[in-house]
Every structure is written in C-alpha cells, then in structure tokens.
C-alpha cells in the first residue's frame, strides 16, 4: 500500500467532517472517492498533503501513513510532503504570471537550477499534461490567457513538474466542457503508470471511466471501497448501490 489511513477523524471546531476512516490506497492506480456534497471528501484529500493545516481551528486525529511513515510525525517536513503529494484544485488556479513561470514555480521554490534543466522539466511536465503542443510557441504568454481546460491542464503540469509520487485532484473537471474533460481523463489514465492518483470525480460516470478502485463516502463516513467492478456491478451496501445508480446524490 502506498498510503494507509487509520482511524482518521477530522474536526472543524466542534463540527466533525470525517469519522473513523480506514482506507488503504495502492500505488500506480487511480482511486476515485465519490459521494454527494458534504461527504468529507475534500477534507480527506486535503489531509493527505496537510493543506488542511492552513484552515483555522481544524483538528485531525488518527494516522495517515505514506510509504509507512506518518505524515503527522513531528519530524516531517511539510513543504517536502506537499512536493511529494501534489494537488489540483476544483477550479483552475493559474498564478498571474506566464505559462512557463507557472510550471516552473514549484521547481524554483526548491532552489537554483540551471536554465536548461528547468526548461527541460517544464517541457516534460507540459507534455505529460498534454498541453505542450498548445503552448510551446507562447510559453511567455500570461497563463490567464489560456482557456479553462488549458488552465486546468497547466495546473496538472505544474504539479507534475514537482515530480511527485501522489497526485490529488479535487473535482478537477467541474467547470470544464466535455472535450477538455476527456483530454484530462486521457492524461490521467496515462499518468497512473508513474503516479498514485486520488481523484474526487465530478460525477459517478467519470469515476466509472477512469478509476481502478472506487471509495464511496457519505456524511463523513467511508461506506464501501473496492475495485471498479465491485462498486459499480456488485456493491455490498444498499446506499452505494442507490448512489451509483443515481437514486440519490
């Protein structure tokens, strides 16, 4: 298992968002975490790279192990953790700088790097995110000038440039058209060979198209987890069945 989550509880002040969650996530697969709004999925994703620490008055209990090492240990370097566990947000979030500078942002934080090595990293990341051909002639253009779908692929490239081990995607296609969505899904399917991908898909159909494994969450609790076939064709829990067949949610 790449990631093991044990008895995870997440509280915002007095309100509990995640309840006693246990989940193992294998490497080099796509895990979709599905569930209606307010299921605690975003909280779960944000706890994996400790981005949740930025939220005031948040408290987490339990253990999250990546390669057997707890991310909440006192000797964990949080910035290093966030490089290993990259994140793509639900709306495209390019910084107001050029396309190149966006992708180079992470590597530059890490320290000095030759201009040649840096442009190599940027090109590689943009190729993996299937954006290179769109932007290779205008790397100096503002990132804001790209379309929504291109911006989101830029955000994926920005994460890939960190050479992470795990990529978290929190409803990355929620504002995108079907063609852009298809492009991103294609990239993800190829990327899983090199990375461990955890995605909150924007609907059940997307989970069905891209994932190897699916976890269903409801009201902060993990209801069921299994392979794609298990969850979609043969769910054990009635609520899972109701959700994936569209009876609620």
């Amino acid at each position, binding site marked *: 298992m790449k990631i093991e989550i044990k008895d995870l509880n997440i509280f915002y002040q007095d309100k509990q968002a995640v309840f006693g969650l246990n989940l193992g996530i294998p490497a080099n697969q796509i895990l979709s975490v599905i569930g209606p709004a307010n299921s605690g999925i975003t909280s779960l994703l944000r706890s994996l*790279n400790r*981005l949740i620490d*930025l939220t*005031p008055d948040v408290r987490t209990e339990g253990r999250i192990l990546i390669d057997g090492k707890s991310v909440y240990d006192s000797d964990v370097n949080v*910035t*290093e953790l*966030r*490089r290993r566990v*990259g*994140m793509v*947000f639900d*709306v495209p*979030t390019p*910084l*107001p*700088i*050029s396309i190149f*500078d966006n992708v180079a*942002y*992470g590597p*530059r*934080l*890490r320290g000095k790097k030759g201009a040649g090595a840096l442009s190599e990293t940027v090109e590689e990341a943009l190729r993996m995110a299937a954006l290179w051909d769109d932007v290779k002639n205008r790397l100096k253009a*503002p*990132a*804001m000038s790209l379309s929504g779908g291109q911006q989101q692929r830029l*955000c994926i490239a*920005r*994460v890939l440039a*960190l050479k992470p081990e795990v990529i978290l995607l929190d409803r990355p296609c929620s504002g995108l058209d079907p063609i852009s969505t298809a492009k991103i899904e294609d990239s993800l399917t190829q990327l899983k060979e090199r990375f461990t991908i955890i995605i909150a898909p924007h609907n059940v159909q997307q989970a069905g198209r891209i994932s190897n494994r699916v976890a269903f969450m409801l009201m902060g609790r993990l209801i069921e987890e299994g392979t794609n076939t298990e969850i979609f064709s043969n769910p054990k829990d009635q609520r899972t069945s109701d959700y994936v067949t569209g009876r609620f949610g």
Partner: protein
Amino acid sequence: MKINPRVSEKIAKGLIWSAALSVLAVLVGIIIFILAKGLPIINWSFLTEIPRNMGRSGGVASPIVGTLFVAAVAVVLAVPFGIGTAFYLAEYTRENAVTRIIRFSAESLAGIPSIVYGLFGFIFFVIYLDLGWSVLSGGLTLAFMILPTVIRTSEEAIRAVPDTYREVSFSLGGTKWQTIRKAVFPSAIQGITNGVILGLGRCVAETAAVILTAGTALRMPASIFSPTRTMAIHFFILAREGISMDNAYGTAALLIILIFFINVVANALVNRFVAKGR
C-alpha cells in the same frame, strides 16, 4: 405626488452627472488657474538658482532639493515599517487584541491633524533629541504622519490577493515566506505602490508638520542634519509675507507638476516590472 419612473430616471441621471462634472470643473479650474499664473514664471534660472532676497528674486533650487530630500527620508523610513506591519496584520496573525490595538492606533494616527505631528516632531526630534531644524527631523515627523496611510493601503492590497494564490503556492511546497514573496507580493505591489505614492504626495505637499521640524532655511541642504525649506513652505511664506505672489505661483505650479510626475513615473515602474504576465 408620484413621478413617472422615466422622468425620475432622467432627474437622477442629471443630478449625478452634474455633481461629477462640477467637482471635475472645480478641480480643473484650480489647476488651470495656478498653472496659468505659475508657468510663465518657470524658466531655467528659476529651476537652478537659489532664492535671493528672501525669495523676491532668484529661483527655487534649494526648496526643490529640500522637498525631495525630506520626502525621500520620510518614505525610506515609513515604507519598510509600514509594509512590514501590513504583512504582519494580513498574513502572520489572526484577529486578536494585538492586531486590534495596532489597527486602532494606525487609524487614530491617520485622523490627527498634521500640525499636531509638527508639534510632536518639534518637541521630540528638534528639541529633545537635539536634531535641530533639519531634513532628518522633518523626514522623521513625516514618516510618522504617513505611516498609517501606508499600513492601511498595503494591508488592503495584501488582503485583496485571492486566497487561491496562497493555497497553490503552499500546495507546491512553498514556505510561508516563499509564498508571500512570490505569490502574494507581486499581486499586491500595485496597491502597495498606490499607498506609497499617496504618502509621498502628502509629504511633498505638507506644510504644518515640516515648518516646525525642517525649518525655513533658504540655503541648499548639505546633509540630513541641515535645515531646509520645502516648496510648499516656500510659497506659503512668499504669499503670506507678501514677498512675491509671482514666485509663489511659480513654486505652486512646479509642485503640481512634481506630484503629477511622481505619479506617472511610479505607475510606469510598477507596470514595467510587475504587471507582466497578467
């Protein structure tokens, strides 16, 4: 009586337009009046000569230098502390007793008339610290005066930066300082610069606070310990003592041009170095 909505719409539009136009007319009127009276006075020798005969003849070279000198000292002192405080308030702390005290103090300071700063500067810097009437005393006093403006405008500019920029930077492995320097500061610099220009403008135009601290000396200031006279004080004295209304208008016109020039240059610099990639 009920007014037809189409009529009331016209009346409202007319009133709002005439309000805006009359303000504009007054503003433009003042500027044209001063420039019309002052511009004919300005020539090369007016710019390069030191005032002679109490300012009846000669130029305004030393008041120009004095103005820029005092304002520069004030800005150099106020900007680092002001921006530092703004970042502390906006990024490094949550609302608590300390931030409320800082903000309350800054807002109170902003409401104090400048003559009170002048009196404080006179008693504290000029007499108690024995700095005398000097560029330094004037600059320190003005620094205190513009500090609240710099803090408030900078804090607003920093808070206006979308939180997503911070989240992105943190999620890419940025530390707090890297995030502030590379994601927040470049987006806030425009607003911060506006605050600094506002403060600089107040320094350049200030009379009450500097007349008591920088003095009214006509000679060229040799160092920050020399007394000096700013342009605003120069034409205040010229007009009040009835020395030379022509030279007063000339100095005032020059001051307007200077403030305009500062605005244009500062905006151009920001656009050139920061706004790229937007």
